[in-house]
């Protein structure tokens, strides 16, 4: 299948994938740091566990949205080597497109009605 990939073609992202990408927006992270970031970003609403975390990471890697950086210890944790990930340039465009899509949804009159309960 040949097509120059448009970011919009990757949407919608699953919530887990989207939050992982959000966590990487600030820079490289390893798996544990991603789980902590996501929990912080969602104020405790989304607590990733290893199964969902790595299945989502695999999908993001397969789709070219993130890439592995290297394996190195995290000085703030322990001596264990950890695999770091970062967003690709395409991944950044996809994440931005998803944010725009969600923002558009939230701004729709119908959505506002739901929130305001009219």
């Amino acid at each position, binding site marked *: *299948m040949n*097509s120059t990939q448009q970011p919009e073609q990757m949407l919608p992202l699953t919530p887990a994938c989207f939050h992982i990408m959000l966590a990487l927006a600030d820079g490289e992270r390893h*798996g544990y740091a991603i789980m902590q970031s996501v929990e912080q970003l969602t104020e405790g609403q989304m607590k990733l*566990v*290893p*199964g969902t975390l*790595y*299945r989502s990471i695999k999908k993001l890697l397969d789709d070219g949205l993130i890439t592995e950086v290297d394996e190195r210890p995290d000085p703030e944790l322990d001596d264990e080597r950890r695999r770091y990930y970062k967003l690709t340039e395409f991944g950044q465009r996809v994440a931005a497109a998803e944010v725009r899509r969600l923002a558009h949804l939230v701004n729709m009159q119908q959505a506002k009605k739901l929130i305001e309960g009219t």
Partner: protein
Amino acid sequence: MVWFARLYALCLRLYPAHYRREYGSLMLQAARDLCRDAYRTSGFGGLAFLWARILADTITTAAAVHRDQYQEETGRMTNITFGQLTDTGVLRPINEDSVLSRFYPRPTGDDQLGLFIVADGLGGHPDGNKASKLAVNVISDYVAKQLETAHAQPLDVLVAALQAANTTVRVEYPESGAAVTAVILQGRTASIAQVGDTRAYLVIADELQQLTTDHSVVQRLIDLGKLEPDDPANADRLNILYRSLGHEEALEVDTYTYTLPADSRLLLCSDGLWGMVEAPRILDIINSESNPQEACDKLVALANHRGGKDNITAIVVNVG
């Protein structure tokens, strides 16, 4: 803490072997991190809650990873390429055929979906070109909308799309109509809806198989034994369609579903091709030309070379 690591290592055995090799140690590391945090903040109670979540998550994601693997192995890697060409031909003043090939993006994990349509406006009626164009547009718009519905069955969608086109063409161009062949290709499954004398063929392993039946008087006479199937004079017989889009209020559509093997090819065409080029030559050209666009170009060129008595349209799809 070691106990929990051992327990989780056991859980990991639910995942496929290659996935375990790739991600097993990473998942174990993540689980240990979470256990350490949970114990630190909330003691054994926290650990118990964490474990409930990890177990539930393991069961659902292991099943999902197995399913992902199955999809990858069976159809998600299908590579579909296509070519299309429509040509007025030599004798006709305008082109009353219409053609469309389009891919619809799907959520990742689902097969890409291709829609291919050949429509041939009724000759000898006014506005045949407009009727065929309208039919193609209505069908493609309808399919695009319906695909947003989860679990839409391609064949049902196609039939409904042709019905919608039938109604629209009857209203807009009541004197006219069109023959239509429309195919939805998803992974290796082809869903075909057809009315009139536009055809779909399948090429597998050096064999050209006509998948559709013409709704024409000539074909009926052949079926009844009144005409020879390979009589070259058939091509010159005035081909009246007893079924076409835009004619009756209730449109009867012929439908087919096929699972296409790897390296097979689909040909959709109007009678301007099959009426001018006999099946063995069509097969030769398709077999000799692996590039689907080149195959279309050659087929149309040959039909024109033979006289180009009608508008000629071909779509060739390679199923990888």
